């Protein structure tokens, strides 16, 4: 079995890990933004599905992946708009609306798929990659990491952009205040509703983009329920990351690598039930929580709608 682990295969595994990680990363980054601003966004799975569906529709009919990413993000924003309206503006329960949106979009996208694609199952052509000179020549790692679609690099750049926003801009301060003590932000003259709305819409854009990536790059097609719980994983990642975008990246990669590990073990002919291998990433995270379970540092006002002057 030694011969199995050729360079090509190893880099394909790594490539697969990255491809699987990107939607989780985008969802996690999005969720993190909402949570920072005090909105527990359980509807992220629905936003991803909207992004996946519209992203695919956009890419398929226009033939342009970029347009697909754009329509996907727009789809996520559209769902986020409903969430922002209901949960931020008028303060409905975030969990009820989040779950309702997820259920609704599961149904709606499946319905649309049924009428539109269930006879033809259209698929997109191969994705063009942006090759980064020199780096892409490194054995194994090079082809896996530096021959990706441009959007992958952008997603990773986004991690650092988010870090910058949170630590170095007024917006970062506003977001944190909106999550920790919205009343203080309000009396400082910043509209809490607007801040939270911006956060939720950004979440929608990122989740939609993640969904579009999943459909267009990850799968190359759309089928019902394609996200398969990726949104909920995004919520877990965001909470584990405690407000740090880099940790979302690490977490997403951990899940991606575990998925590839499953494949690697099977291809190597190691006979372990897949159910057990599938438990690995969750087990790893649980063990980390048991060993290093520090005090949770979630925003104080997470999940609580803000109403000015209420007491």
């Amino acid at each position: 079995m030694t011969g199995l682990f050729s360079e090509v295969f190893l880099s394909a595994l790594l490539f697969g890990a990255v491809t699987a990680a990107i939607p989780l990363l985008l969802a996690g980054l999005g969720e993190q933004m909402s949570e920072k601003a005090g909105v527990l966004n359980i509807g992220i799975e629905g936003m991803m599905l909207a992004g996946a569906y519209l992203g695919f529709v956009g890419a398929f009919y226009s033939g342009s992946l970029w347009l697909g990413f754009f329509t996907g993000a727009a789809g996520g924003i559209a769902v986020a708009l409903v969430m922002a309206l209901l949960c931020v503006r008028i303060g409905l329960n975030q969990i009820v609306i989040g779950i309702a949106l997820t259920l609704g979009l599961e149904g709606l996208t499946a319905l649309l798929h049924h009428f539109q694609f269930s006879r033809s199952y259209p698929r997109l052509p191969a994705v063009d990659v942006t090759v980064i000179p020199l780096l892409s020549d490194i054995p194994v790692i090079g082809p896996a990491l530096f021959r990706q679609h441009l959007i992958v690099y952008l997603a990773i750049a986004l991690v650092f952009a988010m870090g910058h926003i949170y630590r170095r801009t007024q917006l970062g301060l506003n977001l944190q205040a909106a999550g920790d003590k919205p009343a203080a932000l309000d009396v400082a003259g910043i509209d809490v509703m607007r801040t939270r709305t911006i956060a939720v819409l950004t979440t929608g854009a990122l989740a939609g983009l993640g969904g579009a990536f999943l459909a267009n790059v990850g799968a190359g097609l759309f089928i019902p329920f394609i996200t398969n719980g990726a949104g909920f994983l995004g919520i877990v990642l965001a909470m584990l990351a405690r407000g740090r975008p880099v940790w979302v990246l690490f977490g997403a990669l951990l899940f991606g690598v575990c998925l590839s590990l499953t494949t690697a073990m099977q291809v190597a002919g190691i006979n372990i039930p897949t159910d057990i291998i599938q438990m690995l990433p969750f087990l790893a995270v649980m063990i980390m929580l048991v060993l290093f379970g520090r005090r949770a540092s979630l925003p104080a006002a997470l999940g609580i709608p803000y109403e000015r002057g209420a007491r």
Partner: protein
Amino acid sequence: MSIASSLSVDKRDIVALEGVTKRFPGVVANDGVDLAIRPGEVHVLLGENGAGKSTLIGMLSGLQQPDEGRILVDGEPTAITSPRHALALGIGTVFQHMMLVPTLTVAENLLLGGPWWQRPKTEELEARVAEITRTLGITVRLHAKVSELSLGEQQQVEILRAMVRNTRLLILDESTSMLTPKGIEELGALMRRLVGQGLAIVFITHKLKEAAAFGDRISVLKLGRKVGEIPPERFRALGEQAIISEIVELMFGKRKDDPEAAERPVRVIHAEAAPLLQVHDLAVAPTDEAPCLSSISFDIRPGEIFGIAGIDGNGQKQLAEALAGQRATMGGSVRLEGAPIEALSVGERRERGLRYLTDDRLGEGTVGTFPVSINFFLKQVGAAPFWRKGVEQRAEIDKRAAQIVREYDVRTPSLKTPVARLSGGNIQKVLLARELAEGAKVVIFNKPTYGLDLANTLASRQRIRDTAARGLAVLLISTDLEELLSMCDRIAVISNGSLVGTVENADDARTKVGRLMIGLAA
């Protein structure tokens, strides 16, 4: 008549209220209030708890809109629609409840509100803060997390925030309640300097002496209505005592001399009586927001009131929590009636008769969304006769609650009202009633009268004295030296987590405590 004169729009008014009315479920918080606020004046707003003072300034700072009446800014009728609008109009407010983000630094809190796309302009802020603090004579630690600051420091940050924003009208809602006498004096001097620079100030307090000392004009609210005003001309013509008695008459309708200077009744404490509470060498580890406590030792005998003085944030809260069992200790012993209790839980200590009245009413003292009635029994859940075999006896609870409400004069629309909807002072009464309930032997009071109006302050102090007179041991933690001097038998001073000295409350106690507080030997 002064009220009539303020009705006509005066060009000198920065802000004027005309017939402003605000209703909440079950109460009319403000009822046709007229008010004129002028530059160069400290306008003191007085009134009992729940009179509607905070509601009034809530409307000035854009948190709430009046149901009736109008607000004029610079003579123009203006609807102040949001805090942002209020800030733009030059109205800066320091609220009764802390309005800083605890997880951000002081500098970041001050920067909050800038254009969202910008980098926070820290250098600019530092320069501006340096300039302001120089003229105001205060110091702030710009790069400390707000959660690490004492309440007093936080209040200074809030005042500073108002100043950084070029405020024309500064509103201070009970800003002195957390300050030491020296801090209050400094704040007074600061206000004088500010009005000297042409600012207008609205100053809310329950302490009549402060009103008399720092004010130029006084308005008194009662049950949401404005019941009187002392204009500057009259104010200057009267002496302190005269002003105070006039205020008292406006507020309570009867003449009385300075009510705060009540005589300390001479109590006889049997020196040989065994101490009820003995604390020996108590130590508590430091945390992010508090210093460590080390070798704290004192005894309190039955009937004695033992005071702890000190600037806020020197370990008072940690001491109280360690005694109540809410905070882990690192060593030392605590004995109640001679029996060690340091290993007992909060509930067990309470059962033995140790009571703790917290200073954090909304944070831990009450469950804000629960009805007033239930909050009376928060520490007795499951106890007869309010619960029988674990089942709630609603009639029993309501009966007793109604009784307490009457006895302690809690102003609440109903027993079912969520306790957080009450005014600050009335929440405090709920706590007092709860801790003084039957079975108490040792009671720890942490700032028991903070935020209470005059009548309630006096009533509460009397209750504490009565408590001691019944033979209970009382530990009274306060930042208000007057209060300690008027109540205690002995006063210890806490500084940086240890007791730096204890003095008998005799004639020279004020100077001795004062010396201890600024780090000199008594």
